[in-house]
């Protein structure tokens, strides 16, 4: 009896010690979370209802910032630009990365070399990427017009042409598919070989097994890559900041560029916060909607 209570006591003491150690080890995150995640988010809600240029005292303005974020012509234009970019960039990116992944799971030579080459563009510093692509699209001396010229396409003004600036950014995004591709390659490697063999024995053509086996089995990864790509596309702006600064005629003024400008160039901290929350709600809304739609087309093995 005595030994038993002794044992229990020791157990709880050890338990308590583990609790304390647990909190101690997690302290960096606990501090970080409250100081730099939870507090900023709440603070940002407060900011949204104030006008504040950081120099004078903040003034309560009620819903004015939110109203402006929802009606301002430039804000709506930025939203349209980001949506346009996302709608056209993401599907093509997915097709490219999936096709490349399929090709790289075939028994060709130097597969790891190709994989490294396709991955490379996304690890290049974004400033360097932006600078090079700005020159790639140069109307007179860029390689874009040069290469298109081989196929008889007349030279275009690209980043200087209001109609072609957004398509140019979308085109550039096709180079940034390395991450998606690696995920697809990993997924394709996990498809059971017996399944493919069974299909082959049943006389299914390559194309048939692609659409009836490979793509259905890959839908969870396609879905995952799509969700991440949409979130990222809505937030793209550093290339636009460097290459066009939002021009020509605000055609490449993306949402985050608009937020950045209002916050750090015009010092409208309240309005910028309202814009940021607007974007946040749109992105979260999109993501939730996709999860609902996903039930219809994403296949999970039971």
């Amino acid at each position, binding site marked *: 009896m005595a030994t038993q209570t002794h044992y229990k006591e020791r157990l709880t003491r050890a338990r308590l010690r*583990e*609790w304390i*150690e*647990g*909190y101690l*080890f*997690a302290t*960096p*995150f606990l501090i*970080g*979370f409250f100081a*730099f995640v939870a*507090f*900023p988010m709440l*603070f*940002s809600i407060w*900011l949204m209802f104030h006008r504040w240029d950081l120099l004078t005292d903040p003034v309560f303005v009620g819903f004015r910032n939110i109203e402006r974020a929802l009606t301002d012509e430039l804000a709506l234009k930025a939203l349209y630009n980001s949506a346009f970019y996302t709608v056209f960039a993401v599907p093509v990116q997915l097709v490219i990365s999936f096709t490349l992944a399929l*090709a790289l799971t*075939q*028994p*060709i*030579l130097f597969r790891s070399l190709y994989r*490294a*080459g*396709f*991955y*490379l*563009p996304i*690890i*290049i*510093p*974004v*400033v*360097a990427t932006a600078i*090079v692509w700005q*020159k790639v699209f140069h109307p007179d*001396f860029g*390689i874009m017009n*040069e290469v298109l010229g081989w196929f008889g396409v007349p030279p275009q003004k690209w980043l200087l042409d209001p109609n072609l600036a957004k398509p140019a950014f979308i085109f550039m995004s096709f*180079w940034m598919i*390395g*991450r998606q591709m*690696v*995920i697809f390659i*990993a997924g394709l490697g996990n498809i059971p070989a017996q399944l493919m063999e069974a299909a082959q024995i049943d006389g299914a053509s390559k194309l048939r097994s692609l659409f009836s086996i490979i793509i259905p089995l890959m839908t969870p990864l396609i879905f*995952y890559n799509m969700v991440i790509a949409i*979130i*990222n596309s809505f937030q793209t702006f*550093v290339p636009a900041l*460097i290459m066009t600064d939002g021009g020509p005629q605000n055609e490449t003024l993306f949402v985050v560029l608009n*937020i*950045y400008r209002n*916050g*750090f160039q015009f010092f409208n*901290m309240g309005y910028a*916060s309202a814009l*940021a*929350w607007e*974007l*946040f709600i749109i992105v979260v809304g999109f993501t939730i909607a996709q999860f609902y739609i996903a039930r219809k087309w994403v296949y999970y093995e039971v």
Partner: protein
Amino acid sequence: METTTFPTLRPKSYRRQEILRRIGLAVLQVVMTLVLITFLGPTLWMVSSSLKARTEIFAHPIVWIPETPQWGNYVQALTMMPFAQFALNTFIICALTVSGVLVSCSLVAYSFARLRWPGRDFFFGLLLATMMLPEIVTLIPMFIEFRWLGWTKPGTIFGFLPLNYLPLTVPYWLALSPLYVFLMRQFFKGIPVELEEAALIDGANRLQILLQIILPLSKPVLATVAVFSFLQAYNDFLQPLIYIGSRDYWTLALALRSMNDAQVGQWELLFAASTVVLIPVLVIFIVAQRYFVQGIATTGFGGR
């Protein structure tokens, strides 16, 4: 019986199929090579142009390979700005980032992986939720917070570290990189508990266990996290742009951008500078490629 009919029926069609398959693969090989050239095109053009004479840059049709490589472009590009200083600044920020991530994330990941404490699962859920949080929502309030702390002012701390570097690096010391914590936790969970129990019985404390048992067994995940966080800090543009005031404290990314804004016609110098900035990334990529692939394949994140 089957074995007798099989060979008589199969060989011809089988051989034809095999030939077709080989042709298909050869065609694929050629197509993929063309695609690869397309993917590397802008980068190769940048490197080649960094060695061109000015007249070759602005020539029609495009000169793809410079007649005589102008190595002087590099000298000129690197001396028109205090490039060594910017490189040093960048590496200071990278070192603070990588060390912060390794220290704080391994502590936190160990706590989430092994220790039982009330609220652990709740906080782990919060950690995963922050992964989905767009950076932009906290960008502005965090700027104001750092301003209150005095970290947006000019000046240094400890006599050498610019105050402006604190907003860029302190969050990494507070394990605010959910992806890395997650990666490490998953890895730690795969290490047999028995090793630790034996050490606990021998009277080792948790910190000793982490330092002497867990971390030495976790080199692959530490390498992955170190590589990712180095690149994240090295390639970052937005945070340095917002926080770093004085030109003396600029990073390479900021220097490149200002060069691009100022040097309208000197592409060869701009490309030379960009190539130099690219070299460390390229070296790391070549040396540590398998860690990239592992990291991305297991978490689905990494890169941009």
